[in-house]
Every structure is written in C-alpha cells, then in structure tokens.
C-alpha cells in the first residue's frame, strides 16, 4: 500500500515537534517522528543508527530487515493506520516510492504502578492500573500466563485515536459477547475518548444511564478474577479504570478485599453492606411516613424522644428530612471536589459545626440529622451507585412523605421492577436473585470458601463453566 510522504509532510508541516530526517543509504529515505511522543534514545538506537550503517540498500524490504533491533516494526496498511502509529509515537520511514515502515519508538512517560486510591485493601495485591495501556496489559498478562488470554486492539475517537483493547480468556468468555462488544466499540462515532468511562456509555446496551451497567476496576487482580468468571475487560489508553462486562448489581457490594479474607467474615461484611444500602434508601422515607401517618408503629419511648426533639422545629417532618438529605448531598459533592486536606476540614465543618448548629438553633431535629447521616453513610457501601441511590432516597422519601406507606410500597416496587427488567449481554442485572440462580449464590452476598467454588457463575454467559478444567 502506497502512503504519500508529501501528503504526510504537508499534513504535519508547521508543527514544532514534527521532525524529518533525510537519509541516503543506496535509496533515499525520510524518517519522521513526533518529538513529544517518541523516546529520543529509541529513535537513535532503533532507527537512525541502523540506517546510518547501511550503505547499499536496494529496496524498503531490505531496510525493514535491517531495522531488526526494534521489537515493533510493521508496515501500516493504509494512510490512516500510518497516522495512528505516528501519533502513538512510532517513527515512520518512507522511501522514494511512498512505501512506509513504522518502528516502535514510543516514550514511556507516565505514572508508575501504585496502589489505587479508590480500592485500597488490608490484604491482597496493591498494584493498580495506570494510564498507559501497555503497562495495564502487562499487569494482566503477568497474572494470565496462558496463550488463551486474547487481546483485540482498536482505535476509537476521530481526533484522539485512543487505543482500546478488548481482553478476554478464550475458552471461558462467550465469544458472541466479545464480538458484540467489539462491534459496539467499532461503531462508536465520537470526537474523542479521554477515559474508559466515555466507552462505558456506548457499551450500555439499553442506554439506561440511571444505574451503572458497566463494571470498572483499578486493580488487575480484580480484573483477572472477573475475566476468569467469563467477563470481558476493556482497557482504554489514558485511563486507569478498566471496564468489565457483563455487570451485575451485586458486584458493587463486593469489595476487592473480599477474596483475601475469611469467607465467613466476607459474608458478614457483605450482608452488612446489603442491609445498609436498603436502609439508606428506605430509612428516611420510613422515618417521615411513620412520623406523619403511622406513628403507632414507632415504640412509645422512641416516639416520645422523637416528638420532644422535633417539637420546636419550624418545618414539617418531610421538609425537614428533605433538607437534611439535600444538605448531606451538597456536603458530599463539595467534599469530592476539594483537595483531600481541605476535604477533611469540610467534613468536620459539615458534620459537626453545621449539623450541631442547625440542631441547636432549632432548625432541624437531632433524630432527622441522625437518620440522614446514617442513611448517607450507608450509601457509600455501594460506591459505584452512591449518587443514584441518593437520588432514589430523595424520591422515595418525598413519595413516602406525601402518600405514607402506600407511597413507600409503590415506589419501592417500581424501583425493583425497573431493576428486574434490566438485562445486558444476556445477563440479568439482579442475578443471581432475580432470576434466582441458586448455584451463583455461592459468591453473591454470602460467600463460600474459594476452594469450594467449582463452577463459574451461570449468570455470566461463558463457554466453560467448570473452574477446574
């Protein structure tokens, strides 16, 4: 395939980091690279020095053979592939007949592998993904020393040409789902992909946008664990978040450290997370509707305490609770955007000063603040869905405050019907509970010891469900 050097040069002319070097070694060659994307030493060692020693080359094929010092030498199939290689840090060598060779001279600038701040563990590996796709694949490859570990490379984004890799284990992952994901990624029409979360939106089959439908992890051990269950990992260059598909609701309740702890402890902590998530969404609504409509349900002494605390409050219980929840959400949002040092002060100001002052001033009742805070803390046990759960909590509280228990029942049922209806990549979102898949309950909320997990989850389509063969 001919790739016009003149056209190429015209395209990049005027760019400060665009370098051209003319070399005569029997035939005339033009070596071009982007100074900012290439490693100068690699350009010198793998391209310029070998070319300088060649005196009588007859054609480009001979040149390609002489550039054997570099591990990555290839012939771009077309003009666009040449541009993609060039912008990724390859050095292109053109002959007079517009033949082109791409030599890997990419620079290795980037963060070194470290423990990811979003998934810290007490026990277990501390390596985390970084922004460099090559390093990330290395981290996976280190753990999957098998030829069955397959990678499909793509480039997504009109201007960013972001390298995206679809990784899976052949013989475990369902090939139809792999093809489906690749097809979806190939059909992405966008200016740029700056992070894997951009791709997550395209991989959400039903475009629900309410709940997260694509898993993400910063830890290679977790990504490999999921791939061993039949999931597919999608890595995007420039992002330390690796996407995993298909995704289940229960995954958000599973912590990276779960597999390195005793299974009984894991079961207990997962149950606690499960209960706290349900309580987080329903507790404010129940508190309001019981206080307004069905106070008889509340034990007498507790009721007296609540009534004493809220006697002088100028707002209705519903308004009071909505205010508490909104203030909590504002604090959470502000806390997320603050540098960590300021964030701690902000938490203190929010939790102690603001809360205490509001109670002292008689604007909010202490039980409402306590319920709001308890519910807010519980939401963080599902870190991926905190925001949406917070919104649902507001909605259920409002409906419960207006309609009482009927409102709470109807709104909760609506949420469950909605969740139960979701299904992506042949995987029901609420599996293994709805539909009930008894075999998969071994690692949902309860966890059996890892040696006893003989089968892969049935909820995730796979080609081989036996973990031991």
């Amino acid at each position, binding site marked *: 395939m001919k790739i016009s050097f003149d056209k190429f040069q015209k395209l990049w002319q005027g760019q400060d980091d665009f370098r051209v070097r003319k070399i005569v070694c029997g035939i005339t060659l033009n070596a071009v690279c982007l100074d900012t994307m290439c490693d100068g030493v690699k350009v010198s060692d793998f391209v310029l020095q070998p070319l300088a020693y060649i005196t009588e080359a007859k054609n480009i094929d001979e040149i390609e053979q002489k550039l054997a010092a570099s591990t990555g030498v290839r012939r771009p199939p077309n003009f666009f592939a040449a541009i993609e290689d060039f912008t990724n840090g390859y050095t292109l060598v053109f002959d007079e007949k517009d033949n082109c060779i791409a030599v890997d001279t990419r620079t290795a600038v980037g963060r070194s592998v470290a423990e990811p701040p979003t998934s810290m563990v007490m026990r277990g590996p501390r390596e985390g993904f970084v922004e460099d796709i090559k390093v990330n694949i290395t981290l996976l490859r280190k753990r999957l020393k098998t030829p069955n570990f397959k990678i499909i490379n793509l480039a997504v984004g009109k201007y960013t040409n972001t390298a995206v890799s679809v990784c899976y284990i052949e013989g475990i992952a369902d090939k139809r789902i792999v093809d489906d994901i690749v097809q979806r990624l190939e059909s992405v029409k966008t200016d740029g992909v700056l992070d894997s979360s951009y791709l997550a939106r395209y991989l959400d089959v039903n475009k629900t946008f309410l709940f997260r439908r694509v898993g993400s992890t910063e830890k290679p051990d977790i990504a490999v664990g999921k791939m061993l269950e039949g999931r597919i990992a999608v890595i995007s260059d420039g992002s330390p978040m690796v996407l995993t598909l298909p995704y289940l609701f229960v995954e958000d309740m599973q912590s990276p450290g779960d597999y390195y702890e005793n299974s009984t402890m894991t079961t207990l902590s997962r149950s606690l997370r499960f209960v706290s998530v349900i309580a987080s969404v329903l507790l404010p609504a129940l508190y309001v509707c019981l206080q307004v*409509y*069905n106070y*008889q*349900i*509340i*034990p*007498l*002494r*507790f*009721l007296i305490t609540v009534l004493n605390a809220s006697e002088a409050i100028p707002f209705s219980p519903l308004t009071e609770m909505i205010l508490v929840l909104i203030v909590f959400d504002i604090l959470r949002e502000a806390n997320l955007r603050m540098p960590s040092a300021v964030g701690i002060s902000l938490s203190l100001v929010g939790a102690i000063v603001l809360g205490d002052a509001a109670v002292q001033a008689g604007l909010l009742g202490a039980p409402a603040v306590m319920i709001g805070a308890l519910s807010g803390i519980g939401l963080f046990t599902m870190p991926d869905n905190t925001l949406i759960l917070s919104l649902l909590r507001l909605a259920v509280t409002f*409906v419960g405050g207006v*309609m*009482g*228990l*009927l*409102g*709470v*029942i*109807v709104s909760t*049922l*609506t949420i*469950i*019907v*909605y969740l*139960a*209806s979701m*299904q992506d990549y*042949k995987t*029901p979102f*609420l599996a293994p*509970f*709805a*539909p*009930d898949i008894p075999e998969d309950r071994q690692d949902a909320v309860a966890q059996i010891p890892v040696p006893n997990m003989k089968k892969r989850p049935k909820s995730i389509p796979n080609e081989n469900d036996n973990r031991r063969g």
Partner: protein
Amino acid sequence: MDKNRVSVDQLALLYLLIVMGGKFLTLPSLLAGDVGHDSWLAVTFGFVWDGICLCFLLWAIKLNNASRLDISSILDKSLSKPVSKLLLAIFFVIFVLRTNILLSSCYKMFSVTFDVSTNWIVYVLPVAALAFFATVKGFNAVARTGQLLFALILIAVVALFISPLREAEFGALLPVGEAGWGKILLTSYTRSFWFSDYIFIYFVLDGIKIKKRVFAPMLISFGVGALLSILLNAVFVSLFGYLAPQFDMAMSKIGVFSAASTTNGRWDWLTLSIWLVSVFIKVVIFIFCAYKCIEKFVGKRFVKFNWIAASVVLLTLSLPMFVSTDALLDTVVKWGVIPFTLVQYVLPLLMPLLTKVAQRKTEVSGE
C-alpha cells in the same frame, strides 16, 4: 429477549404470592357471614376445584410447549373468533372487577387500619402507574420482582400468623359442617369469584419456559397457598367466633394479636405492609392481564405502549367512585357467577383439548 417470558419456577412463586395476596382481606369475613365457623370448609372446597382446574391448565401448558400458541390463537383456532372475543371480554371484566375489589379493600385497609384517607383517584393513579410501568417492562420483570420479594413476604405472613395461632380456640370450629354441606358448597360456588387465581396464566401461555418439571413446582405452590388460606380462615373464625363477619379486614385484625403492647410499637403493621406488597403484585398482574385482554381482543400486537388501552383500563378502575364495592360484589354474585364460571372453571378443563385442536389446525394451515 422476549420480555414476557417466564420460567415455571417463577410462575410458581408468583402464583403463591397471588394466592396469598388476595384471600386475606375481605373474603374471610364474607365467608364467615355466609356459613359461620365453616368458612374454612368453603375455602377448602374452593381450592379443591382450583386444584383440579390447575392440573388441566398445566397439562395444556405442557402440550403448548412445542407450539407456544397464545390464548387468543388457541381460542380463535379451536372455538372460532366470535367465541374467542366473547371469552376475552369475560376475562377483561373479571380482571377489572377483581382489581377494583382488591384495590378498594386495600383502600379500606389504609384508611381504617393505617388511618390514611385519600381520594380514590389519588390512591389509584400511582398503583396504576406502577402496573403500566410493569406492563411496559414486561411480565418477566414482574416475575423477577416476585422472586426477589417472595422470601420477605412469606416471612411477614408467617410472622403475622405465629401469635394468633397460639391464641386461637380451634374448638370454635366444631361441629364441622354445622351450616350444612349443601350451603357450604353453594357458598364456595357463589364466592368462586375470589378463587381461580391461575387465570392470569392464560395470558402468559406463550411465554412459559419449560425446562424440566411443570406440575411439581406449581402444585407445591398451590398446596402451600391453599394451606395458608385455609389456616387463615380457620384462625380468623377461631379468634373472632360470631363476630367474625363484622371484621372485614381479616389480616389486619389477626395482626392485632401479634402486637404485644404499644410500648414496643405496632410491628404487626410493618409486617402487614410487607404482606401488602403481594396484594400490589397481584393488582399489577391483573392490570397487565386486562391490558393484554384488550390487545388480544383488538387482534393487534401493541409493539409500543398503547395509551388508549391503558386509558380504558384506567377508566374501569374508577368504578368504585360511582358504585360501592358491596354493590359490585352483589352484582357479581347475582349476574356474573355463571359467565365467570365459564372461564374460571370450564375453560381450564377444556384447555388441553383446545390446545390440541389449535395445534392441529396450525399444522394444517402451515403457519
């Protein structure tokens, strides 16, 4: 994925929820009014009939597994289109009436037990919105919801039963058959409107996924549901004796025995609320079926949500605003019992035969 597909296990759990969801409201007091302490016998006879009909229907489901014909295709091909439309119209009336009666019982429960009185429309609209949302999402989503909440609802029902069971004077049920067997059987027939909960299965016939067993899970569900309903009636009459007909909200009255004292709060109300979820699941399913009746009556598959059909169903749900529930029930007993018996108790017995005929006609026509 067909969003109306459902497995036999899911169907069995839903069936049990539906049985538990409707029979613990006003039915026990109505039966106690008719036959006194023999009401549990009337319930038993009702379930005997239900059991026989269910077996025939399950047989039809098994026969239909290969061809996956829907109810209107079966009726059209085996009985002719006019008869099919007539039966669909009867189905529609049953679903709408049963939904109305369930909703008005819940309405009464909320206003009397929970002390929350609202306007009928304000009460019905959110429930209807939930039902239509579920219709859009498909029967499969409802079945999964049932699976998810099943254990919780069952625990709530058992929790409500435990204390009253200890308090009940079962000697009050003696002598057995005092009201007269003929009267008990007749009551069982006249109140049959409350039974035959399996009728919703007609409208998911084409979506039932059979892997292994059909009879076992369904009959176990039926057995547990029937047992709980008979037990509730027996406990209810044992607890309240001659006053039973006066207490029209059986479950909430029974729940009173679960509450120890106000110092501990009315936790029975909380369990009652959880049980109410099964009533709303039943309402959702019946509204889904009423909507499907219109779809099949019109003979056109609604690819998108049909607002006209939904409006028709919604309009019928405003009936209790104009006619009292008691009057509705009296009308049903007087005029509706015969046509309703046709689809509740005669049609299931004929279903295997009708399915066979429809299958044969489909094969002949090469569809």
